[in-house]
């Protein structure tokens, strides 16, 4: 059964177990509707998105060959930043979720795709698809809650080190891709003891990350800068060309990191999003799992461009309900999902990007300090269907 963390008002107190299973059935029906029409349109969409992204990336990199010229540097850097964002968000994240596996195209498949990100796809799929999406917002199980370095829920114990968490969060945002790689490796936990450090499985994964980062770094900070040197020579400034392109790549990577970090913070941190107790998910039904996704996610409202640039994670609620449906379908089903929230008197957390980012950051600042009021865990357990489950 679903148990919530300390809240003044339990948002699901009015729901019976039968209601929760009915919510599950209604969500399954929405999923079936998408499956019935999923096909050529989705295949065309992702192929076009990949083609657009690759053209934009090649075009921007071509412009950056002339990085000694300031207008070219600015144009190329903007283009490359957008290309990297599209590659990570709308393309990589969604393909790695298996959203396009139905196409049976080995080139666009969750088992073969690799992305322009420090974290190897395979390791990310484990920590993200397997752990985060299954154990969404369960304190102690879902490490996405604060990434193991921050306190993002009143229930988490405060320590003086949390005073620095606004700073950690900012540094993590800038270096997000490396943060995620370290997170997938569970670096903090695995480096803590000699036994864990020497674990062959950990070392193999460490080497895998090392290779990936080496290739990424050589590409962005050596190979492409070197390509612009001949043009730099023609302008009598080969060093300017090399370091100009290197800086452009660095800026593009940081822009992409800041953007994806912000979008992801909007998904689970803003005000109104619920967290769950570790024991609450034992024996969870499909309806209860759905309900946890509904309560544990938040959307970003905005234009179509906003949805594409966030990889449709602006529809975080729909994404968490149906992580394997093509993301471009989320906008279509969002009104139905929202109607379901209203029907069952649940809060559909959404807001403009700036508001949501501010809300998430406010939480990071607020929880850097100890709770003002002593934590009082109120039991908001929903009534069990069978007496035997009361012990769960």
């Amino acid at each position, binding site marked *: 059964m679903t148990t919530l963390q300390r809240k003044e008002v339990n948002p699901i107190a009015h729901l019976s177990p039968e209601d929760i299973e009915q919510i599950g059935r209604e969500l399954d029906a929405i999923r079936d509707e998408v499956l019935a029409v999923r096909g050529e349109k989705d295949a065309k969409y992702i192929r076009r998105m*990949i083609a657009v992204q690759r053209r934009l990336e090649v075009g921007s990199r071509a412009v950056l060959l002339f990085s000694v010229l300031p207008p070219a540097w600015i144009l190329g850097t903007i283009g490359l930043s957008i290309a990297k964002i599209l590659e990570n968000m709308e393309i990589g994240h969604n393909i790695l979720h*298996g959203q396009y596996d139905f*196409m049976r*195209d080995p080139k666009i*498949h969750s088992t073969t795709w690799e992305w322009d990100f420090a974290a190897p796809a395979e390791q990310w*799929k484990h920590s993200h698809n397997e752990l985060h999406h299954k154990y969404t917002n369960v304190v102690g199980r879902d490490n996405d809650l604060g990434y193991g370095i921050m306190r993002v829920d009143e229930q988490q114990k405060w320590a003086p080190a949390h005073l620095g968490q606004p700073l950690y969060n900012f540094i993590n945002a800038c270096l997000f891709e490396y943060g995620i790689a370290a997170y997938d490796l569970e670096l903090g936990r695995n480096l803590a003891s000699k036994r864990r450090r020497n674990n062959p499985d950990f070392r193999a994964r460490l080497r895998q990350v090392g290779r990936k980062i080496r290739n990424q770094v050589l590409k962005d900070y050596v190979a492409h800068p070197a390509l612009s040197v001949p043009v730099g020579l023609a302008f009598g400034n080969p060093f300017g060309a090399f370091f100009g392109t290197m800086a452009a790549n660095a800026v593009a990577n940081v822009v992409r990191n800041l953007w994806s970090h912000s979008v992801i913070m909007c998904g689970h941190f803003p005000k109104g999003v619920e967290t769950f107790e570790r024991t609450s998910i034992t024996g969870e039904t499909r309806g209860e799992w759905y309900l946890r996704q509904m309560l544990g996610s938040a959307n970003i409202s905005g234009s179509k461009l906003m949805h594409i640039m966030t990889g449709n994670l602006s529809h975080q609620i729909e994404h968490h309900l149906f992580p394997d449906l093509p993301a471009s379908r989320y906008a279509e089903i969002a009104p139905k999902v929202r109607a379901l929230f209203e029907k069952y008197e649940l809060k559909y957390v959404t807001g403009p990007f700036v508001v949501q980012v501010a809300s998430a950051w406010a939480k990071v600042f607020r929880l850097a300090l100890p709770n003002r009021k002593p934590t009082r865990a109120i039991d908001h357990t929903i009534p069990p269907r069978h007496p035997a489950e009361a012990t769960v």
Partner: protein
Amino acid sequence: MAVTQKLRDGAWRVVELITTPVVPADYLDVIAPLRNPTVLRARVDAVRSETAKAVTLVLRPGRGWQPHKPGQYVRVGVDVDGVRLWRAYSVSSATGRADGRFTITVNAVENGVVSSYLLNNARKGMLVHLDLPDGDFQLPEKRPAKTLFVTAGSGITPVMGMLRSALHELSDVVVVHSARTAEAVVFGAELRELAAQGRIRLIERHTGTDGRLKPAGLADLVPDLFERETWACGPGDLLDDLQEHWADAGATERLHVERFRTVVLVAGDGGTVTFEKSGLVVESAGGTSILDAGEAAGQLMKSGCRMGICYKCVLPMREGIVRDLRDGTITTASEVDGDKPLIQTCISAAAGPCRLDA
């Protein structure tokens, strides 16, 4: 030589570094999909209607193609409503065209997803995926003195490929072809023209009026039956009859057959799951996931969320039929098509016999 090779390898590594984490060919695909050396594709150059239910596609293969031998088939991957499905089709054109183009002729079969799609939707410019030509249904290098072709329906396609390639090297050719009506004969006009020129002896049988061909009746039509090297292609029961007849006459080695898929997989409830690499065979109930059934029987399997969202448990299915436990979606795989779809074992239940590549 070694030095230039080394330089070339080094240069290629730099190019790969420039495009990492994808490969250079992935960028090439955006502008020139036929130039990709690792993925064989073809563009449809022309579409010709043969009969009301058959269509010929002229294909221009991309880099990596190797010409077929007469009688061989080629596996073609077609995106039908966004899903890539593979089917084997015989090459119907002559070998050795200078521009490398070749044709396949597709006969729409009942409930045939791919054949119906191609009949109605194949257009000039369409891109399909290819595999290299394959199959032993071929004429030997030393051409036989007398040949017989027994075909039915779309079984004429590989034979047409042989006739178009090598008829000038064959002297005494008999073609016995069955189709429902005269209009339904694929390549009817061309075959009748060859017969009129005296280059083949054509025996058409229209099963709509004449009934099905029986091997016993074949001897009346072709008296020197067993003196001929014979190639047969058509529905399975016809081929079974022929093989029995040739075996009875002690002439098995003179009969060469090519079988098409005729079995349509029908979803049932549960089935035998075979893990081919480990050799494990499990009876799996219709309500049990293949992951649970396999693990219970001791098969080592990868798993993750166990609820269909993380895609860690996927395994290639060589042949079989499974049902998605969440929404009832049916997925099939056929050995003949050579396609091995990856199925999510944690939410897939056997809906018939399944063989997994694991």
